[in-house]
């Protein structure tokens, strides 16, 4: 495996995990502030544990028992669906057709919703635990993390670098956790939309590469085709964004839709 494709793998997994964990952190902090920290942290920890077990339970058998070409086609298709979806959202956001992801707004909405929950306030629970806070934190981390798990398993399995992919994801989890603990609030300063664009470009590139590789296409330059594909999708992203921004401008009310969409 060429160094450049390994680097793209690490960057893609780290970037994907970083943005998803920043989104999860918003929900954990909202649950902690409004329903109590103990339940929120327990919910988040439980979700991380379940996700780690999923990586081991699904990833290791995939690498050991599924033929590599079939695995690459399946993985490539999955990465392509995810990558093109992320890239589509990125183009719509940068061209003004969709509102950018806003952690502050999501945080405010979640806190307001959780404080509005009546009848089972955290202080009144006999065990000192709050099931609502636990559930919100667990669900937030689990749902955001599932996409990361898929990316870790896909990229790791296709290149037989599951350990490296898991390490890159773990590094992002540790980074977001440490920063989150230090600042004790949502990380709205992280340039999520930019990182998501970069990850979308990398996932689409890996997707096309692995689908072709698994189906028997011989890429010129072998693994060096991956950074070339990254360049191609970057140009596509810039061109489509410019096209939509200049020739097909957004309606004034377009950005009011999907503010809280992931």
């Amino acid at each position, binding site marked *: 495996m060429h160094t450049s494709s390994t680097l793209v793998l690490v960057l893609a997994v780290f970037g994907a995990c970083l943005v998803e964990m920043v989104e999860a952190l918003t929900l954990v902090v909202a649950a902690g502030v409004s329903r109590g920290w103990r339940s929120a942290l327990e919910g988040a920890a439980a979700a991380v544990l379940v996700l780690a077990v999923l990586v081991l339970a699904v990833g290791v058998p995939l690498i050991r028992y599924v033929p590599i070409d079939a695995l690459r*086609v399946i993985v*490539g*298709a*999955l990465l*392509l*669906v995810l990558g*093109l*979806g992320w*890239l*589509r959202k990125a*183009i*719509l956001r940068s*061209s003004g*057709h*969709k509102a950018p992801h806003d952690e502050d707004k999501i945080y405010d909405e979640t806190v307001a919703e959780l404080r509005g929950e009546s009848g089972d306030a955290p202080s009144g629970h006999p065990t000192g635990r709050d099931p609502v806070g636990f559930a919100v934190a667990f669900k937030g981390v689990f749902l955001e993390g*599932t*996409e990361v798990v*898929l990316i870790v398993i896909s990229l790791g399995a296709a290149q037989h670098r599951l350990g490296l992919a898991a390490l890159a994801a773990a590094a992002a989890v540790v980074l977001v956790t440490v920063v989150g603990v230090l600042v004790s609030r949502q990380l709205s300063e992280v340039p999520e939309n930019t990182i998501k664009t970069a990850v979308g470009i990398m996932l*689409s590139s890996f*997707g*096309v590469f692995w*689908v*072709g590789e*698994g*189906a*028997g*296409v*011989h*890429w*010129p330059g072998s693994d060096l*085709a991956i950074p070339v*594909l990254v360049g*191609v*999708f970057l140009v*596509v992203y810039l061109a*489509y964004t410019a096209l*939509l921004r200049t020739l*097909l*401008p*957004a*309606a004034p*009310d*377009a950005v009011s*839709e999907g503010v809280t969409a992931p």
Partner: protein
Amino acid sequence: MTNAVANAGARAARWFGRFVWDFVIGDTPELALATGVIVAVAFLLDGSEWAGAILLPLLAAGFLLASTLRGRRRAPSRPARP
């Protein structure tokens, strides 16, 4: 007891099915379809070099444009009357 287990299993299977559907297809079924077409074309180009290297990214870019255009909100062509 057996019925309860079967019901719980059915509920879990339904939840998982919905989850996978939302995750892979969601509100952009055209991208799932695009991926299917790209996979099929890749198999047709088995053994090729430049043809695959050019056609596969081109197809992905084409489907991405179609899906993005589908997702955008069109600007009003003329100002609204007072």
